[in-house]
């Protein structure tokens, strides 16, 4: 992005074009501050240090879906990838928070992988959605492709730029009628992973289903997530990123902030509106406003995670 003392009209328009319609959340010391994106873009142009883009979250691409709500999900994923590639500073890595495919079929995984290879960024971390584990093998297709970092368990952690990333899986072993679940083995692993870790290290936790209960009748929550957060409360900055509900919902609880993301495929209704959490068909010109990606910028002093959601239009 261009840095000038006095932003030109063209420069400002450029920033606005990149920012798109959205709200910028800045987290500092656990307090979430929402500001207008245009204002934030100007601030950045004035030279204020807002850190470097650490990662981008892509969610719910549902490759293979072809119904009325979006007959071209490959096309909207490509547009999402183009948005990432157009970022003036490329992020270090990408998180895909699940529902890569619609039906867990090999050709759908293959096409998704092929499209995601179009990203300039080569480091991509995946956590599956329930659509990715709906093959007869209960996730075999997903794990055959993306199971290596987690040794086919679905949960693993890694560090980047001083931030500790934790991939969790909450779409296996559903209790009938219940919410998403992490399970005792994963919780025990998490405890071990966090033990002895400095509370000043920022955590980024990502999983497919929301890790707080947004709407229980539709299963929008994770039944045993509280046990995970009990282990994280001592940390100064915890950013929890989920997909699944195809819309942005955020919540702050102490130093833990929760954000669900837009999908790249189709929107879903708000909690409890209509018969169930299925695809929401909107007028064609509205669709790109309801799909998009999220970039997260990290500044270490003080720890600031700046979350920016950008729609396709």
């Amino acid at each position, binding site marked *: 992005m261009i840095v000038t003392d006095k932003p030109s009209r063209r420069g400002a328009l450029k920033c606005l074009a990149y920012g798109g319609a959205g709200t910028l959340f800045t987290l500092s010391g656990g307090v979430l501050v929402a500001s207008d994106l245009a204002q934030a873009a100007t601030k950045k142009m004035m030279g204020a240090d807002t850190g470097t883009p650490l990662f981008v979250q892509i969610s719910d691409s549902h490759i293979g879906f072809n*119904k009325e709500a979006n007959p071209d999900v490959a096309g909207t994923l490509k547009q999402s990838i183009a948005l990432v590639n157009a970022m003036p500073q490329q992020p270090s890595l990408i998180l895909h928070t699940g529902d890569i495919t*619609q*039906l*867990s*079929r090999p050709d759908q995984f293959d096409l998704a992988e092929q499209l995601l290879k179009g990203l300039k960024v080569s480091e991509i971390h995946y956590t599956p959605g*329930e*659509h990715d*584990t*709906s*093959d*007869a093998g*209960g996730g075999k297709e997903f794990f055959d492709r993306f199971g290596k970092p987690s040794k086919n368990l679905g949960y693993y952690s890694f560090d980047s730029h001083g931030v500790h990333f934790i991939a969790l899986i909450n*779409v296996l072993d*559903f*209790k*009938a*009628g*219940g*919410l998403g679940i992490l399970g005792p083995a994963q919780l025990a692993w998490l405890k071990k992973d966090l033990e002895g870790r400095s509370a000043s290290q920022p955590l980024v936790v990502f999983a497919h289903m929301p890790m707080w209960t947004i709407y229980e*009748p*539709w*299963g929008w929550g994770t039944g045993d997530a509280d046990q995970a957060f009990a282990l994280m409360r001592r940390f100064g900055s915890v950013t929890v990123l989920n997909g699944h509900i195809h819309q942005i919902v955020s919540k702050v609880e102490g130093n833990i902030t929760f954000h669900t993301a837009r999908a790249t495929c189709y929107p879903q209704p708000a909690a409890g509106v209509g*018969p*169930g*959490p*299925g*695809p929401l068909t909107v007028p064609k010109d509205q669709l790109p406003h309801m799909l998009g990606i999220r970039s997260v910028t990290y500044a270490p002093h003080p720890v600031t995670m700046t979350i920016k959601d950008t729609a396709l239009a």
Partner: protein
Amino acid sequence: MKAKTIVAALCMSTLAFACAKATPQKGDVTIKNFSFGPSTLTVSPGSTVTWHNSDGEPHTVVSADGLFRSAAIDTGESFSFKFTKAGTFKYVCTIHPRMVATVTVK
């Protein structure tokens, strides 16, 4: 003679398949509006139950005890399982786990 029997058997199996793919029959389960109907089904041992997805969304049919597990059943597709032993089998759609139902075999 032997060849004839095989041809006849093939025809019958094709016929049975065609029937199973047609409109849901009594004893079958229809998936619609994020629910299994009927939610409780009783069949005799040896019966084959077929689940038909008439919903706009894909669903799965996965038994709690691991006896049967479908792949994702898309709109207009179906899944069948033959029940040989008696018992009550609870199952769930793993894509929408609030969808639960049972098959009782007796």
